[in-house]
């Protein structure tokens, strides 16, 4: 791989993380009052009281060294972050915020990658087939039908899915990630249980995102169809299926991979909210509870986690990209 490309990408990655962490720090310091006091005030306005609220504020001030000069606070903050120290969870004291988030992480990553992958594959196939010659008209209609879904926010779709499939028809569980009390071993039964619980959350993301991929793939494929190498491939007498998979799709996929990187932020934000609807014990659920409990360090940790995940995903896709498109590899 071109070292300069690699270097530039790594630099952007680090810069992104740095900028986001700094923003995160700046926002909490720009407030007229302690962020924690703001959170407690917000809860009080809702008629909830926080046990030992005064103690929490005191611990928070001590931990952040709010009496130290701002520059010193900033250095401390960055140092702690570099060591992966996000501070103590105030709700689950003395468990650290990073431990709370790490515990939820596998659920979120599993759900997110499953949904993203499914939507990406189905959407692109659908979009490509919609303009491919001699494909049943049904595919064209599937694309049109999937389009309006892409305009609806996932979490609203999720609420309707819960109502229909879980509450009304009892086809799927109402929430959670596995049957409580089931023994979770490495067997097919456990896998089926996990998938059964993941089905609706995944479906709500897939339904909402498929149209987006199908729509853009349709546009790209329409331009690829007119390209000379496809005419040549046809002239050589290659089978239509082979031309589709080895020639047309391979080229049309390139911009889609870039789009995947760009869209990742939206995906993860939607995921956070979908987890809330389904009581799915991932990072979104942790965030929701942290917001309700004014658990400042967990809230901050989750937002940093979102930034980090998106940055890593974009970096990985960008590093994979030269393997997919040799033209990038040889560019200086």
């Amino acid at each position, binding site marked *: 791989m071109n070292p300069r490309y690699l270097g530039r990408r790594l630099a*952007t990655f680090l810069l992104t993380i740095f900028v986001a962490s700094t923003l995160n720090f700046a926002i909490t310091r720009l407030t007229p009052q302690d*962020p924690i006091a703001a959170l407690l005030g917000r809860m009080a306005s809702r008629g909830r009281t926080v046990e030992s609220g005064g103690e929490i504020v005191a611990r928070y001030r001590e931990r952040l060294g709010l009496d130290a000069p701002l520059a010193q606070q900033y250095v401390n903050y960055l140092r702690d972050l570099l060591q992966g120290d996000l501070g103590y969870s105030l709700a689950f004291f003395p468990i650290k915020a990073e431990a709370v988030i790490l515990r939820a992480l596998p659920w979120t990553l599993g759900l997110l990658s499953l949904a993203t992958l499914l939507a990406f594959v189905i959407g692109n196939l659908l979009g490509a087939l919609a303009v491919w010659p001699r494909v049943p008209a049904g595919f064209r209609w599937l694309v049109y039908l999937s389009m309006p879904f892409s305009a609806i926010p996932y979490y609203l779709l999720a609420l309707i899915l819960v109502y229909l499939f879980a509450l009304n028809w009892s086809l799927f569980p109402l929430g959670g990630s596995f049957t409580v009390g089931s023994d979770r071993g490495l067997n097919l039964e456990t896998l089926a249980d996990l998938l059964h619980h993941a089905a609706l959350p995944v479906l709500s993301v897939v339904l909402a995102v498929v149209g987006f991929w199908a729509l853009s793939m349709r546009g790209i494929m329409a331009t690829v169809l007119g390209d000379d190498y496809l005419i040549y491939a046809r002239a050589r007498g290659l089978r239509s299926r082979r031309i589709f998979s080895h020639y047309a799709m391979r080229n049309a996929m390139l911009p889609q991979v870039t789009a995947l990187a760009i869209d990742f932020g939206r995906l993860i934000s939607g995921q956070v909210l979908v987890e809330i609807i389904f009581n799915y014990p991932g990072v979104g659920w942790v965030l*929701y509870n942290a917001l309700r409990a004014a658990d400042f360090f967990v809230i901050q940790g989750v937002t940093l986690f979102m930034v980090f995940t998106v940055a890593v995903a974009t970096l990985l896709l960008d590093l994979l990209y030269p393997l997919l498109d040799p033209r990038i590899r040889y560019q200086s």
Partner: protein
Amino acid sequence: MINRLRARLSPSMWLGLVLLALVLVPGLFGQFFADPGQLRLMAGGISAPPSPDHPLGTQNEGRDLLTYILKGMPNTLLIGLVGGGSAVLLGTVLGMLAGYVGGPLDALVRNTVDIGLTIPPLAILIMIAASFPVVTPLIMGLVIALTSWMHPTRVIRSQVLSLREREFVLLLRLSGASPLHIVFRELLPNLIPFLAATFVNAVATALLASIGLEVLGLGSFQTPTLGNLIYFAIIGNAMWLGLWWWWLPPIVIFIVLFMGLFFVSTALDSLANPRLEQG
């Protein structure tokens, strides 16, 4: 221009406008028919299903839900308009200047946008909304705009990059027109259909962000909005208790609204890029 517009009022545009009108007309004018007294605690029975007195029923504190929706819709629409409008305004100024002037300004804007786009807006918005105590719809719209101007900036910049290579721009430059004049008086009118599409998308983005924040419980609870309504319905277990009249109407309104925005933006897109249609 007008003729072209009329010729292109496509089915998609009509469908979108009708859907938008379905939401906007009651959303803007319904508030004047709503009686604020109905929002009081125990204005009706607790969690009562729809009845002639309360067409959309009441929630778990006996507040009338139709009144809440009519009072809340203007606030929700305001967040979308302020958020989307400011983002596009900022994006237009930055994108046009960066694209036309080029040089260090362009490099600065381009790099800021590239980095900004990889930071998920919700992450920043959560921190802002959690740290600042009072969030009115206006402030929420402005804050959302702060995290969503990057995309409009990028697409407008790339449009200007291609526009500025046209002959009429060269002619203007040769005749001594100032850059500001060229950018805002000559280039801008060419971009109007494109800006309209960008605006519609930005409004949808802003609404999406605001619902996200409100569903997380980060909205202002003193102000009725549709997102807050959904939040309270979730908190009040409306779905599990079978109170469909509580959680379903705001969702239906949002779906109609988002579909409307989607169809209008698709229609505007093909108006802005006639070449897309042949694809």
